[in-house]
Structure formats: structure tokens, C-alpha cells
């Protein structure tokens, strides 16, 4: 399998705060990668760097072999990276349908994802199509965020803490959705604090601490590795 997204030794700062301190990851086509780590370790910063929100000061990011380190966010999105951000960040004053509508992009090839497909994946969204996104429940907002990312017809979907603040039932639904996306061959980067959820879902995990990858393995190995779990994930 060929590499879809590769991040090579990036160093990212927020102002003076040195967040990513030489981090490298790669994602293969069709693969589901879990990125774990405690709060404040740089997971979201990694995503912001990939998306071009906060470009790294050093290092390079490639997508399908193209250097996207300094490309602007909207072009990165158009190249096929879909973002489902932390905290959902749906557009609250837009209706559900409009949230999906604004994300729709014109592609030369046909659309895989359109309203119909998204509503099939998340029937709840179809029921609430005319409702203002701000008035949705957390779980529905999460579905909308995923749906919105899918509307851009990405070949790589980045999900930042989709389980955050959701009830277990909903987390289950989201997990199922990810499974079905995976089955279609979509590459997924799943950033999670909720290790248990991530481990069930992904093919491979990276653990980040203090802006570096400190552990990389299959999810089963990670779950078995008491030490990594204790120092980098839980509080035990």
C-alpha cells in the first residue's frame, strides 16, 4: 500500500509555546490510524499543522506526494483531506442541510458523497435537515461534523476526538460509521483521548507525548502494554 499522508519531523509553535517537537507520522491509503495521548500533548496541534491552520516552522507534510506544508487550508481541503475537528465546530447559524451544502465541492470525477449518502449514513441528520445546527445535540453535531467532512469527498478523513463529551450509545454509532467508511477504503486518522474507543476502531496507533511520537504499534499491543498506558494515556 502506498503512503497517502506523511508528516516528517515537524516543529510547530503557538506563539512562543513549542508544541510539536519533531513529530513524524504517516498514513497509508485505506488505513485507519489512531493517534492517542493525553490532553495538551499536541494532538490537535498536529491536526492544525496538517490542515494548514498553524503551519509548522520546520519540517514537511506531504499528501499524495505533494508538499502541502505551506498550502492554504482551503486548498488542502480541496486536495482531499476532510476534517472533523475537535469540538465539532459546526456552523451554528446554518441549518443542517446548509452545513453540508457549504462543504460540497466540485470535483471532476463524480461525487461519492452527496446529501443522500450522508443522510443514509446518519439518518438523524436527514430528519433534522432544516434545523439550525447550533440547536442540535452533541451527538447530532458530531454526526453533522462527520457528514460535513464527507461532503468534501475526502480520500483521507481526520477526526479529532469524535467521542469527546458524547454518551456511549452515540460513541458506538460514530464507531460504526467509521467502520463502514473504513470498509469503503477511506483512510481515517482518528485522534482520541478515549483510548478504549480508539483501540477498538483503528488498525494502528501512535501515542504522542510532549510533541513527539513515543509509541507506535498495533492497538492490541498497546492495550497490552501496561507501561505506555500508564505513563502516556491514563492516570493510573
Amino acid at each position, binding site marked *: 500500500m502506498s503512503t497517502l499522508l506523511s508528516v516528517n519531523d515537524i516543529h510547530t509553535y503557538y506563539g512562543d509555546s513549542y508544541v510539536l517537537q519533531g513529530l513524524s507520522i504517516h498514513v497509508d491509503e485505506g488505513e485507519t490510524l489512531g493517534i492517542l495521548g493525553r490532553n495538551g500533548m499536541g494532538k490537535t496541534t498536529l491536526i492544525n499543522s496538517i*490542515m*494548514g*491552520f498553524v503551519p509548522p516552522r520546520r519540517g514537511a507534510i506531504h499528501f499524495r506526494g505533494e508538499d502541502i506544508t505551506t498550502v*492554504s*487550508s*482551503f486548498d488542502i*481541503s*480541496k486536495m482531499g483531506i*476532510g*476534517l472533523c*475537528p475537535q469540538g465539532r*465546530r459546526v*456552523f*451554528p*447559524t*446554518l441549518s443542517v442541510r*446548509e*452545513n453540508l*451544502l*457549504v*462543504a*460540497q*465541492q*466540485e470535483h471532476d470525477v463524480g461525487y461519492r458523497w452527496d446529501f443522500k449518502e450522508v443522510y443514509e449514513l446518519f439518518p438523524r441528520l436527514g430528519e433534522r435537515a432544516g434545523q439550525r445546527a447550533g440547536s442540535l445535540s452533541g451527538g447530532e453535531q458530531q454526526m453533522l461534523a462527520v457528514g*460535513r*467532512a464527507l*461532503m*468534501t469527498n475526502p480520500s483521507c478523513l481526520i477526526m479529532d476526538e469524535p467521542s469527546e463529551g458524547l454518551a456511549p450509545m452515540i460513541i458506538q454509532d460514530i464507531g460504526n460509521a467509521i467502520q463502514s467508511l473504513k470498509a469503503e477504503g477511506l483512510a481515517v486518522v482518528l485522534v482520541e483521548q478515549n483510548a478504549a474507543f480508539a483501540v477498538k476502531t483503528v488498525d494502528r496507533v501512535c501515542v504522542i507525548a510532549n510533541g513527539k511520537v513515543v509509541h507506535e504499534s498495533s492497538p492490541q499491543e498497546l492495550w497490552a502494554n501496561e507501561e505506555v498506558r500508564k505513563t502516556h494515556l491514563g492516570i493510573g
Partner: protein
Amino acid sequence: MTTLSFTNILVLSYNSLSYAAILFLLASGLSLIFGVMRIVNLAHAAFFLFAGYLALEFYNIIFGSLSLMPRIIQLVSWTLLYFAWRGLNAYVAPRHAALALLLAYIVLETLCSLAWGFRFFELFFPHVPVKPVDRINFPGMMAAIVVALAIAALCGMFIERFFLRRLGQDTLSQVLVTIGFAFILQDGSLYTWGGDNFMLKQPWPLNFSAVVWGLSLPQYRAFMIVIAVVVAAGLFLGIERTRLGAIMRAAVDDPEMARGIGINTNVVQMAIFAIGALLAATGGVVGGAFFGVYPGLDFEILPYAFAVVIIGGLGSLGGAVLGSIVVGFIENFGTALFPELSYFALFAPMAIILAIKPTGLFGKG
């Protein structure tokens, strides 16, 4: 204090509404630009004036070569329609696009036909004598308006792209740079068109008044109200009902996230500035046939635009509608009832509203 008869109140209300219409055209752009980009655009009224001059200029050019111009307009409008079709298709449902363009075509074609002597209006207004010059007045004016608006919008885009965008969110710099542009537009207009006071021609048949229940109501005032209502409805529909509008609102809600799903917020901002300038320009052209076009008009009218957005709240379309109606009525009734207080009639309530609710009646944040 003067007392008013019932008829006077009716006429005053009509006048207030028509004044509010111009104010709305001016202030809605200001409000829009602020709402989306947080820019206080002090050059806004300069667009109002500038467009008036442009319309005047193109009106004269068109009338300079009567025989050819209508056909040229027709050609240009067909070309524009073609590109509009392509552009619209990307954003609205095909049947809506088709409907919009069909309407536009009928309007344009009617105008052009009028120019060739089609006595459409004479069928309905046989009592009004039509002079040959009147017949081409309307399409000529419309064509002039289109060109003027387009140029004003381009200027707006230019200023946004090369100046305001580079300033970031620094209010003070924005204020001073836009004042600088106000100076340049104002003095540039003076340089180009001289200091004569002009008045755009009111297109026939709008330059006479209709008599309703014994009140004579100038039709041009009705025309101003209609234009404002159409623009307000168009803005509302455009912002609330189209994909472009949704994109704009998304860019306001969360610009970073909007970029993250592939929306080029730079283009959106430029478009919004262009629309803002376009609205001011529309006001300028419509108002130019009513107020006149003369140097200094911009700084005279700017405080009123501010009054509207302050009262209505910045960045809210409904607020702009309400604000302009409030200002229109206060200005007309205040001046009629308390002529001595006409300068405070406006600013005193504004100060009070701000003191109570610093973000205006409808303001957010």
C-alpha cells in the same frame, strides 16, 4: 412645535419611507461589511457618491451615440447573461438559475426594445406625453447604472484585496485607511467631474407624481422604496437561501473551519466587500436622481448611515431595515415637528440607544 394634519402625516410617512429606502441601500452595505469582516468602512459613503458620478458619466456617454448604444448594450447583456448562467449553475438549483435569468432577459430585452420605439408605456399612460428622448431614457439609465455599479464593486474589491486585507483586525488602521480612500475618491471625483452640482435624470415615467386619494405622491419616491424592498428581499434571499449566502454565513461563524472544508475565505471577503460597495453604489445611483450628485455629499450622508447601523445594530440585515426606517421617520417627523431640534432629532436618540445597549437594538456580541 408644529401640528400636522392627517394628510400631512400620510405624506410625511410616505416621504419617510422613501428616505429610509436610500438610507437602507447605503447602510446595509456598511452593516454587511462590518458584520462579516469587522471593518468600519468610512469610505462607504464615498462609493455612494462615486457611483453617482459614474452613472452620470456613462449616461452621458450612452447618450452621446444614441443609434448604436442600445444594440451594444444588448450584446453586452447577452454575454453577461451567458457568464451569469455558468456562474449561477454552480451555486443554485438549475431551475432557479433558469428562472432568474429568464426574468433578467425579459427585463433587459424590454429595455432594449423600448429604446427602439416600442410604445409600451404609452399604452398604459396615454395621458402622459412622451418625448422621443424619454423613450430611451430608461434603458439608457439602466445601462449606465449597470456599468457604474460594476466599476464601484471592482473598486471595492481592489481596496479590500490590496489594502484592508493586509491590515488584519486593527480597527484604528482600518478607520484611517478608509478615511484616506474617502479623501481620494472624493477629491478624485472632484478632479474628474469638476465641482458642478449634477442631478441624474429621473427615468421617465418616474418623474411625475401619482395622485392617490387626493394626495400627490411622487412616483420616484415609490421607485426608491421598491428598489430598497427588492434589494432587501434579494439580500435576505441571497444570504439565507443560497449556497453562496450559506458560505458567507459559514465564513462568519467560523472562518478557520470554513477554510478547513475548502471555502476560500479570502474570496468570500472580497466578494462581500464588493457587494457592500455595490449596495452603496446602488444607493448612490438611485439617490443621485433625487439628492443630486455633488462633492461633499459623501461626508454629509455618512453620519446618517452610521446612525442607521448604530440604531439597528451592526452586521444585522433586519437591523439595517429597522434602523433605516427609524432614522427615516425620525428625520422627517422630527424636522417637521421640531425644526429647531432637527440636528439632535437623530443623534440624541442614537446616543441614548448606545448608552443603553452599546451594540445597537439588533446588534450581536
